[in-house]
């Protein structure tokens, strides 16, 4: 049973007020709030068994190491990876993509090669590829989007050439909520033996992800956007790639033997985890995945879908709004502008009414450029949000219009 009041009471922040008004938190695309379970798991790690992991021969190190490796197993199960060796803990989505761009680039990209991304990407899935292409003399190509925000898939086969070495695509657009048909894209790319990285930063928290079913070569996401702590993320990579790619960062735990003459590297997953990892973060993230599991991803999707439809309907009734990402296949993110009102003005007023939305380009300037705008108002909702909160957003928009028009 999906009991929204029970769920809301799991999240301490949701009970707070801002400016004397109840907080309406619609900035989940930027980061999600944490259930008490996650906060407690982090606290417990620090106050009852904390110690550095691996290589320790004492009891606390054993406990911490066990919890960390257990977290890895939970992540593996959550995305249905074949092996724990394919789960690399990183600092977040951005770190994961940079790792792949660097190590894949070092191994496979030569001058004149091509990297294919899409016009829907977050800067985190653009800039690392740009930097790598510049270093290697490779070329970045971009799959365009249609007016409704969906990818122009007809262009994919046109853009894939004999020189294309990797394709990177976001599972879900953080800027306009569009869900990409990643399974089909992967299938198309694999026909040409091109591996695909899926940026799952906005995908992992809104629906079932099965990397084996997707046949994704890489799938990356951040803990903090899936109800877990900050500073932790995941890189899933197919073993064949991870075995073959050189390490990214050097340091402790990622090595086997070090001498000044020759250093050999540790096996997976440790080869890509240099230094003391954020193991407390990993433990917290695993707790978050357990929590989501206890709610049920189907329940989550269902509730979020209802919210999306309700919000769309209510906002459309207000009139004078322009929406971006109008294709049907979206998550519970609404990205829009109030006609003739700057998104920043709207954001400032909504804030004072207790409504936390995000304004601006959402780290996706090319998406904004595509639509000829500077930014939008983005209300990103998740399973702890309610229709009442959407009503408050609507009141806020009315107020904005009253004050500004």
């Amino acid at each position, binding site marked *: 049973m999906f009991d929204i009041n029970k769920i809301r009471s799991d999240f301490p922040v949701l009970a707070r007020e801002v*400016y004397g008004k109840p907080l309406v938190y619609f900035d989940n695309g930027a980061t999600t709030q944490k259930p008490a379970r996650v906060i407690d798991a982090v606290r417990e790690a620090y106050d009852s068994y904390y110690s550095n992991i691996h290589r320790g021969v004492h009891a606390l190190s054993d406990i911490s190491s066990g919890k960390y490796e257990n977290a890895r197993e939970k992540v593996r199960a959550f995305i249905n990876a074949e092996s724990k060796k394919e789960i690399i803990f990183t600092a977040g989505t951005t770190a994961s993509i940079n790792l792949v761009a660097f190590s894949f680039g070092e191994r496979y990209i030569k001058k004149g090669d091509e990297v294919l991304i899409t016009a829907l990407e977050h800067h985190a899935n653009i800039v690392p590829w740009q930097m790598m292409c510049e270093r290697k003399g490779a070329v970045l190509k971009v799959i365009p989007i249609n007016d409704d925000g969906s990818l122009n898939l007809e262009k994919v086969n046109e853009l894939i050439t004999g020189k294309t070495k990797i394709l990177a695509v976001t599972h879900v657009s953080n800027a306009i909520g569009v869900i990409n048909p990643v399974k089909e894209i992967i299938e198309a790319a694999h026909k040409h033996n091109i591996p695909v990285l899926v940026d799952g930063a906005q995908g992992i928290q809104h629906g079932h992800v099965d990397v084996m079913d997707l046949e994704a070569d890489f799938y990356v996401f951040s803990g903090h956007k899936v109800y877990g702590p900050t500073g932790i993320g995941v890189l899933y990579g197919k073993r064949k790639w991870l075995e073959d790619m050189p390490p990214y960062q050097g340091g402790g735990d990622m090595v086997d033997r070090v001498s000044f003459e020759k250093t050999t590297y540790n096996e997976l997953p440790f080869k890509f985890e240099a230094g003391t990892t954020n193991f407390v973060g990993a433990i917290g993230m695993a707790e978050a995945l357990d929590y989501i599991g206890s709610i049920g991803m189907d329940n989550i999707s269902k509730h979020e879908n209802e919210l999306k439809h309700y919000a769309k309907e209510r906002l459309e009734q207000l009139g004078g709004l322009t929406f971006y990402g109008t294709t049907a296949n979206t998550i519970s993110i609404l990205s829009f502008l109030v006609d003739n*009102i*700057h*998104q*920043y*003005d709207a954001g*400032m*007023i909504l804030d*004072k009414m207790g409504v936390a939305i995000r*304004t*601006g380009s959402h780290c996706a300037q090319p998406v904004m450029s595509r639509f000829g705008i*500077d*930014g939008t108002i983005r209300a990103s909702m998740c399973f702890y949000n309610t229709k009442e909160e959407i009503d408050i957003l609507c009141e806020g928009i009315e*107020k904005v219009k009253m*004050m*500004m028009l």
Partner: protein
Amino acid sequence: MSNNGKTINQVQDQIIDEFSLFDDWMDKYDHLIEEGKDLQLLDENEKKQDFLIEGCQSRVWLKPDFDGEKIYFKADSDAIITKGIVALLIKVLSGRTPSEILETDLYFIEKVGLSQNLSPTRSNGLLAMVKQMKLYAMAYKAKQKG
């Protein structure tokens, strides 16, 4: 914009007085919006890249005019609230000498409740605007001496 012979701090105090009438945030914003309407705007052809202030979520153009003694500012923004904020700054700092501008402690910002906008991470660029005004003042001061 003329300052009617008032000192910088007299203008600041006057702004504080005006804002003190409002308890509610919405009334404050309404007032800020009104202030923006009084702003002497730039002509469209003056809205050049040169005068654009970086680091704002909304765009702000700020154009200085120096008559050898005092600096006069004109400005514009595509966001109404930002326009109101820059209007307040101009009310206080336009028609002042470079030295006055450089030495001024802009205490009104905190007193009227806009200091949250001062954090370096805030994207409305209040901090950037103040910085830019002081930069112009520094440049003109150097010119005066030179």
